[in-house]
């Protein structure tokens, strides 16, 4: 049973804050009657853009754009000249693919056009498709505003595939992430999720839980005067305990998958004028922050998304930490400290030529040392100490005090030491985000974490309950949380297990 699933369709399709919320509440979702098409690769300039159609008119559209050729062989790529059928103008030379339903991605007839990614080509092809699918498709309410010809939407086929039951919810989310994956590590994780690994894991948990619940339900409905074997409640208890351990372990490395999906928080901090803004500009390869020799130039928190050694990161430049000179700078310092608390990875920057100054010493004592002391435990905040302005050090080698924690030398000015820093960042981020290619599939969304936590809490209530009806209710709630991750959860499923496992009935 999937009662209420359509709200999930909407939620799943909404993606990570991208403008594809239209599948949501009340808005039309395409059904088998309408043919939809959209740019499936991201908006904007790119090497190759993929345009996908789904629906009964897909074949017609494909044929009319590649006229006079016949449909290409199913599921293999062919190079075709795309022409706008009306003015008979060539649009682009493109790879086209033909996926006849029902063995397609959405279950319907689908076609894909891999065109060159210029905006002009893309909009030309979309326009041509708008004309050709309009002939083949019905223009009933199914092609409501935003859906029919002319609609440009990353991802309608995704919710379609879900609606046609071809993908599970977590797979849909994985696909959404794949489409929005910006870095290599994100792509690998999204692919794994699309493969259904997270779904399989959830499915396994759901199975254990359903079994435990079925045993409790059997005890309630048949325990009294049917001779159920002894100890079915104990068996349910031990299943619940196992599940608790599994969920707990998984939740403990929880934030890693999410970091990988939405980017780790990397916060650059240090005393004033240590070169934090220069480092941010260097890492993001663009002038994010204003750089000046004047201490206290950066006052607010400046954020920029960057790809750090293949990992997505949100890089924050913050005000130099010192007792503020005025109300504005004081506020800046307060915000800097606040941001520091949320950081997954702290990039602590000191002026290598100014290590003895009171501000440097104070920074080392209050920020660096406590963080270094904490850092061995895998999942807490990590810290990298960067000594900037190495170009100002005397050529004979740095004269650094031996009690400094492990550090890296860098010159933002000359770029010396940047490779070493990037390598160190890669290692740190691999720990913070987890390695997406190995290990258990990670929880990529806050939603996953929320439901797993909900499930775990409910299992806690199960153990406390003295009333078996209340205990069963706790398991039902727990199962509801898993069902929301993975689907399933009808009462028939429970009864099937009861009748399979027990000889009940007088």
């Amino acid at each position: 049973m999937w009662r209420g699933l359509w709200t999930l369709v909407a939620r799943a399709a909404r993606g990570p804050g991208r403008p594809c919320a239209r599948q949501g509440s009340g808005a039309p979702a395409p059904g088998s009657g309408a043919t939809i098409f959209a740019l499936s690769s991201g908006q904007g300039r790119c090497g190759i853009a993929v345009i996908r159609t789904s629906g009964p008119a897909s074949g017609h559209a494909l044929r009319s754009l590649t006229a006079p050729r016949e449909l290409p062989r199913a599921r293999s790529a062919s190079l075709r000249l795309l022409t706008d059928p009306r003015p008979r103008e060539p649009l682009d030379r493109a790879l086209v693919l033909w996926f006849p339903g029902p063995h397609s991605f959405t279950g319907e007839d689908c076609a894909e056009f891999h065109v060159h990614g210029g905006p002009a080509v893309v909009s030309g092809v979309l326009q041509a498709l708008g004309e050709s699918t309009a002939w083949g498709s019905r223009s009933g309410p199914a092609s409501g505003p935003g859906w029919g010809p002319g609609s440009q939407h990353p991802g309608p086929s995704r919710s379609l595939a879900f609606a046609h039951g071809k993908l599970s919810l977590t797979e849909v989310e994985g696909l959404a992430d794949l489409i929005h994956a910006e870095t290599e590590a994100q792509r690998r994780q999204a692919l794994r999720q699309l493969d259904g690994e997270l779904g399989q894991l959830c499915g396994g948990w759901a199975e254990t839980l359903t079994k435990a619940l079925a045993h409790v339900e059997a005890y309630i409905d048949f325990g009294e005067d049917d001779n159920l074997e002894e100890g079915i409640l104990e068996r349910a208890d031990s299943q619940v305990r196992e599940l608790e351990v599994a969920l707990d372990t998984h939740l403990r490395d929880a934030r890693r998958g999410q970091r990988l999906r939405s980017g780790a928080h990397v916060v650059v901090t240090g005393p004033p004028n240590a070169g934090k803004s220069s480092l941010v500009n260097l890492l993001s390869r663009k002038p994010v922050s204003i750089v000046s020799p004047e201490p206290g130039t950066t006052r607010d928190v400046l954020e920029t998304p960057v790809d750090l050694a293949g990992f997505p990161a949100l890089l924050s430049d913050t005000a130099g930490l010192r007792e503020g000179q005025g109300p504005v700078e004081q506020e800046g310092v307060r915000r800097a400290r606040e941001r520091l608390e949320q950081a997954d990875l702290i990039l602590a920057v000191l002026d290598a030529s100014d290590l003895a100054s009171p501000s440097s010493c104070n920074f080392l004592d209050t920020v660096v040392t406590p963080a270094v002391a904490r850092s061995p435990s895998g999942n807490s905040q990590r810290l990298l100490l960067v000594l900037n302005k190495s170009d100002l050090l005397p050529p004979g080698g740095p004269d650094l005090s031996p009690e400094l924690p492990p550090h890296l030398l860098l010159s933002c000015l000359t770029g010396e030491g940047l490779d070493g820093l990037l390598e160190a960042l890669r290692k740190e981020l691999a720990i913070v985000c987890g390695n997406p290619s190995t290990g258990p599939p990670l929880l990529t969304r806050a939603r996953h974490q929320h439901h797993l936590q909900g499930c775990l809490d409910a299992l806690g209530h199960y153990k406390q309950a003295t009333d078996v009806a209340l205990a069963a209710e706790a398991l039902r709630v727990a199962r509801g949380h898993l069902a929301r991750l993975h689907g399933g959860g009808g009462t028939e499923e429970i009864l099937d297990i009861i009748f399979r496992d027990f000889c009940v009935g007088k």
Partner: protein
Amino acid sequence: RTLLLTHRVDTIGQMSCNPSFGGIGKGHLMREVDALDGLCSRICDQSGVHYKVLNRRKGPAVWGLRAQIDRKLYKQNMQKEILNTPLLTVQEGAVEDLILTEPEPEHTGKCRVSGVVLVDGSKVYADSVVLTAGTFLRGMIVIGLEMHPAGRLGDQPSIGLAQTLEKLGFVVGRLKTGTPPRIAKESINFSILNKQTPDNPSIPFSFINETVWIKPEDQLLCYLTHTNPRVDEIILENLHLNSHIKETTKGPRYCPSIESKVLRFPNRTHQVWLEPEGIDSDLIYPQGLSVTLPAELQEKMITCIRGLEKAKMIQPGYGVQYDYLDPRQITPSLETHLVQRLFFAGQINGTTGYEEAAAQGVIAGINASLRVRRKPPFVVSRTEGYIGVLIDDLTTQGTNEPYRMFTSRAEFRLSLRPDNADSRLTFRGYKEAGCVSQQRYARASWIKSSLEEGISVLKSIEFSSSKWKKLIPEASISMGKVVSLRALDVLKYEEVDLELLAKAVPEPLKKYTECRELAERLKIEASYETVLSYQQQEIKDIQRDEALQLPKDLDYLTLRHVSLSHEVREKLHFSRPQTIGAASRIPGVTPAAIVNLLRFVKTIQQRQAAMNELPKSDQCLGDTDRLEERQL
């Protein structure tokens, strides 16, 4: 005025299977039937010989009220009640055919029933007809390899009626069930068996009874024995003599014959309850020993069971196979989609059990009468009662085995309890259906207001946990973070009941202990208070889906503007769900279909809202404008 037609008046109230009523889930149904003033609970309070609530240790939400019933007393009491009901005429006669006329245009259905034709050709006219054919539709009794037509042992089956229904286009299926042999009481050696004693005090089934007719010490005992490997052997050696078991017809998974238990779970012993059939009956009903072997082998099997070594079999067990009509062909008011004003209730809809039948009977009866009076149907939702769960399951999912109620079928088990069936259904029954007596209504109102008052009083009494600890040392109140506790919170502790609480705080709690039912119900309300508040949101979600009505006259097969696959169209066409919620529970109806239907319903609702506003602006529209408006 109502006419009751039956093959034989003297079989009214005949318990054709087990000599007991109620049980887990089934007891819930009986309480709900009683809350709507149905008869069986009251009759059971006058006819039981062994009252025992099952699941006592498992929480009040899943208590199963149950009793062994004296067959003879039940029949006597039921006949007395039925034959003395005002405006009810009872007549003997077998129904062979239906009288059909043109359908009413404002309802769906291809024709309307206006009466029945009896086997002698005479006609009886009626504005609505309720059909409760039990196992009689093409009923067939099976013992060993012998089969002969019968509705139950000694009664003729209904064949003409089954043919009529099939000809009308109803989809017919076949189910089977069975009954155990009956054993002479004096031939059983009870002294070596475990006995089960009844509850003291007995809990009545009916809300309007304070107690049952018989004292606990006068009640009869039940005994327990078990099968053994010898029984398995006899069954396995003689499968070739057992056509009932070989048939592919679906039997129940939960009330299986001893043969199917032995086949599915070999090398185990199975329970056999020896139940009395009545106070002055010399028969014992061996519950759990339902069997269709040839009679002489049944006797052989019985005598290898402990305590039954010298048992005399009075009547052999037998199997019954019968027609049922796919219940997806009826609405939640139990009226058929095909024939207007024709209602089905009981085994004809694929259920098994007295209680399931009673639940449908009460709903079909109410709706048959409401239909004649042109009033809206009376439908119980899944969130309101087990009756709602039962009917919703049947009408949306159908069934391919005899359907029996379990508490695990109810999503809102903690709210749908046996103790509160009256506050869930009696008021609706009184106001909407007019089926509830004044006396019952008054009692339910009194209980309801007393409960509300009691709960608010319990919420208002608040002391520190240390003070509570001193007042009620028996309670395991933890001295944790919570500084103050309400009396209601203290009542949640397993070891605290209202009596104990009232001893600690006599004023104002003492008066609530005077009525046993009230005190118990306050305790139950307290135990579930926290969880129930969580469940409210979920109930609201479901009710929101249920509020989205699908038009009754929708032709799914030809419906344009809604994109639905052919398969989904056929499923919707067959079940005709009345709400989006019901549609979403039909197996095979995809989420995409629901989204499309939802959009369709919203459009209709908007259009209706617009139409309702139309009359105001209507005057200023010209004739042509109005025409266009209609075409839209």
